[in-house]
């Protein structure tokens, strides 16, 4: 990332980083520069030095984002916060990165002079890149399309067959007007009764039509084979890649976005290849052939046909632009209408219980009317545009008919030749219509292709080392000065150091958002820490093979996800080759066997989205059975009993007790009472490890943990009081 965008005039020569800023504290626009050397921070306004600070005076530099502006603040060693400069949001990511560098320098004494983070925005168009290396809007269309064409390679024989068939059928269609001309000039105009010649030409036309039909059939078959297979390959490759990407890459995209890329974008490319792949070659070829034929037949008439074409391109493009906006509005209003409908019907109980039916009917009617109005407008525009565009496109035909007709009257041209000529002119319009549409189709497809290839070409940031170790994990886990943030400028964990012994049960406690789940994500290596290291049995987890690590760690989360399938399949998910006996044993240990037996189809009962509705506790016990079957060396319990009632929690606690026995266990729970069996507790506060010890030790220390316990006791008392009332 470029952190030296521009320097002030006469700037200090030791300045390494310099970013412009544009706001005063009074929200007035200024031309300022925030500059950093190894020793100092300089603030310039209008190229004049306004203030300077020694970096050593600060213990932290913060980039604070507000609603419409942001600011850089420094926290001095005596705890005072100092405002340094303010700016609008376009500079935020760069300032955040720079603050991180200064912060790192304050902490470690190491001054980084080169940053390797990606540029936040495209230097050409200014659009945010959102982690992509190449701007999907500016990337060369030809390069993206070339990548798409390369994907046809495995089906090149079918593609070649489709192209050959199309070329042949196009040639037949080019031949047809000539045969028509022969019939008109040799038999119709002279009123000739030579049936042999007439019959042979007519028979040739019929045979050629049959051949064209066969060729078209082969062509369609081959084209669909290429396009559908290419679409299938793309979808599979994108899905495969999405599974191998790190959590940080996956988290940048929503599930909906990933689904859209796997299905919609790939489908768009598939459609483009079906509709335009071979057409690109054939249409251009037929355009050239027809233009040559027209000029050979009569260059003057040919010119009349071709001259309006550039104008047609210009005008139709403008008309289509207007149309596109119109249809976007229709689409937008339709989406808004669906959203309102969805909202009202989903919340029908709330609507009815507050007696707001009339208000909602009115709201829906307004929405529906807006949609209808925009749709009418769109249709009116469409039916106004199409005849105009068509008229402009075919205007040359009128000239051809007028002048061609005069040439016939002057005996300069035969009627058959004019019919042949006008048929070619009509045939010329088809590739031209296609060419008019192609920039729009190409633009649309390039964006889809760009998005699909972005995933396919993304390098996963969590990779196995060159020679990864496959370790038989015993269960000792060490955090050594670990720093981590989901966003580089916002560290969640700061300098965590602790050691968890083999077979120990550790509870992690702290306020919401303090980094408890993040610690777990780091142990699972779903993310890599930005600084420091995590060791399992003395081996840095970056050197462990991911497969070896994850196959020996079991996880039970608060939200249990059951796949669409049977209870049996869901338990066996962690060990697909497990015998039925092993599965039942696991279910028994998890206290799940009894309720599964009562289900209508026992272990074959379908669960998941479309299956039997299980209660939270039942789902959780299936998840525990899954973890037991996995036989992990390290167990992670992330709020495993948070959403359960006390009776169910007891059953789950029993099951968890059996699961965690003798295994290193790390548990997160908001309800501190659920961590009563923990050997030691890690207390996180503001991203730092505040306390680490047994419950008794921490209670005696009367620190953060003590406060948390007291606060929860207070809440429990209040709840009891409410119940008693």
């Amino acid at each position: 990332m470029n952190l030296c965008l521009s320097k002030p005039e006469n700037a200090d020569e030791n300045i390494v980083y310099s970013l412009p800023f544009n706001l005063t504290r009074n929200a007035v626009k200024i031309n300022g520069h925030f500059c950093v050397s190894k020793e100092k921070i300089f603030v310039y306004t209008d190229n004049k030095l306004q203030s300077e600070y020694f970096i050593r005076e600060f213990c932290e530099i913060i980039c604070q984002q507000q609603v419409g502006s942001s600011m850089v603040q420094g926290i001095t060693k005596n705890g005072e916060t100092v405002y340094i400069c303010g700016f609008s949001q376009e500079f935020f990511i760069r300032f955040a990165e720079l603050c991180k560098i200064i912060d790192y320098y304050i902490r470690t004494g190491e001054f980084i002079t080169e940053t390797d983070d990606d540029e936040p925005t495209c230097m050409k168009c200014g659009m945010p890149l959102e982690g992509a290396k190449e701007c999907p809007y500016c990337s060369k269309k030809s390069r993206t399309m070339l990548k798409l064409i390369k994907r046809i390679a495995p089906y090149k024989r079918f593609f070649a067959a489709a192209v050959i068939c199309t070329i042949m059928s196009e040639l037949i269609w080019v031949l047809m007007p000539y045969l028509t001309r022969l019939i008109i000039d040799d038999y119709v105009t002279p009123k000739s009764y030579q049936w042999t010649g007439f019959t042979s030409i007519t028979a040739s036309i019929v045979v050629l039509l049959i051949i064209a039909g066969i060729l078209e059939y082969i062509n369609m078959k081959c084209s669909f084979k290429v396009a559908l297979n290419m679409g299938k390959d793309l979808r599979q490759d994108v899905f495969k890649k999405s599974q191998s990407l790190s959590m940080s890459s996956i988290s940048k995209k929503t599930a909906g976005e990933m689904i859209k890329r796997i299905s919609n974008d790939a489908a768009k490319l598939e459609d483009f290849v079906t509709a335009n792949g071979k057409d690109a070659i054939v249409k251009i070829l037929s355009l050239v052939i027809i233009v040559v034929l027209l000029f050979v037949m009569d260059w003057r008439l040919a010119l009349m046909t071709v001259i309006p074409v550039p104008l047609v391109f210009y005008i139709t493009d403008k008309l289509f632009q207007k149309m596109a906006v119109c249809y976007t509005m229709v689409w937008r209003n339709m989406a808004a209408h669906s959203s309102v409908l969805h909202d009202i019907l989903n919340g029908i109980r709330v609507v009815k219980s507050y007696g707001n039916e009339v208000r909602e009917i009115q709201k829906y009617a307004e929405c529906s009317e807006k949609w209808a109005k925009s749709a009418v407008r769109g249709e009116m525009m469409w039916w106004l545009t199409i005849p105009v565009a068509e008229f402009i496109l075919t205007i040359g035909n009128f000239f051809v008919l007028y002048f061609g007709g005069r040439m016939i009257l002057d005996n300069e041209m035969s009627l058959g030749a004019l019919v042949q000529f006008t048929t070619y002119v009509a045939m010329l319009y088809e590739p031209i219509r296609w060419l008019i549409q192609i920039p729009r189709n190409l633009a649309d497809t390039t964006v889809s292709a760009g998005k699909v290839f972005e995933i396919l070409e993304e390098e996963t940031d969590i990779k196995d080392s060159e020679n990864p170790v496959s370790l038989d994990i015993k269960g000792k886990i060490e955090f050594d000065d670990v720093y981590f943030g989901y966003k580089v400028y916002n560290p969640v964990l700061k300098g965590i150091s602790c050691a968890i012994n083999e077979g120990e049960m550790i509870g992690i406690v702290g306020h919401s958002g303090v980094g408890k789940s993040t610690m777990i994500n780091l142990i699972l290596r779903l993310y890599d820490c930005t600084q420091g290291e995590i060791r399992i049995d003395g081996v840095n987890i970056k050197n462990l093979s991911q497969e070896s690590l994850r196959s020996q760690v079991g996880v039970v989360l608060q939200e249990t996800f059951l796949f669409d399938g049977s209870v049996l399949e869901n338990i066996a998910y962690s060990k697909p080759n497990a015998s039925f006996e092993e599965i039942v044993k696991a279910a028994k240990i998890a206290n799940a066997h009894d309720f599964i037996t009562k289900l209508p189809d026992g272990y074959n009962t379908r669960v998941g989205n479309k299956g039997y509705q299980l209660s939270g506790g039942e789902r959780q016990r299936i998840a525990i059975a899954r973890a037991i079957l996995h036989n992990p060396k390290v167990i992670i319990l992330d709020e495993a009993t948070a959403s359960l009632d006390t009776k169910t929690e007891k059953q789950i606690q029993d099951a968890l007790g059996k699961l965690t026995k003798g295994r290193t266990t790390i548990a997160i729970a908001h309800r501190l009472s659920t961590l009563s069996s923990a050997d030691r507790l890690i207390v996180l506060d503001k991203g730092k490890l505040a306390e680490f010890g047994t419950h008794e030790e921490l209670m005696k220390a009367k620190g953060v943990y003590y406060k948390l316990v007291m606060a929860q006791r207070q809440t429990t008392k209040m709840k009891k009081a409410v119940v008693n009332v």
Partner: protein
Amino acid sequence: MIEEIYDVDKLNILDCSKLKFTKENSGYLTLDFGGRIYHKINPTRLIPFDSKNKFISISYENDEKEFREIGVIKDIKEMSEEQFKLIDTYLEYKYYMPEILKIYSIKDNMRGSIFVKSDTTSGGKTICVKDWYQNFKLFNGSYLYVVDADGNKYFCPDVNKLDKKSLQVLEMFT
């Protein structure tokens, strides 16, 4: 140590005559409220789209980094001119949002983004709006709210007061 009692369930409408704000070095404000001094005060507009001056929440973060609201000012215009200016300036900075004065053209790149060539209170600018269905919105038929690709916000309090050409340009996109 006296523990502070924080009533989360009470709306405390503040009496403007008892408030005295001053600027502090941190970029935030200091409040003297009935003799008690609060630092790092961060005023917030509770209904930013409806009013810039009404219902301003006065809050700070305590040592535990917990949100603490002192109360709500019903209308900062009821404060003295000097105090009003101080808070208004702070809010204008926090909610820095240039006003759109004129729209020359809107170009759609047919890929979900639009480029709005406009005059704003911070000068002429082509505002690049990504995913414009979400980020280029008209509230209550008149308030235009725009968030550009960098996260900068722009607004027009009443599009109906814009010139005829701007309205024509806007028509297709609102």
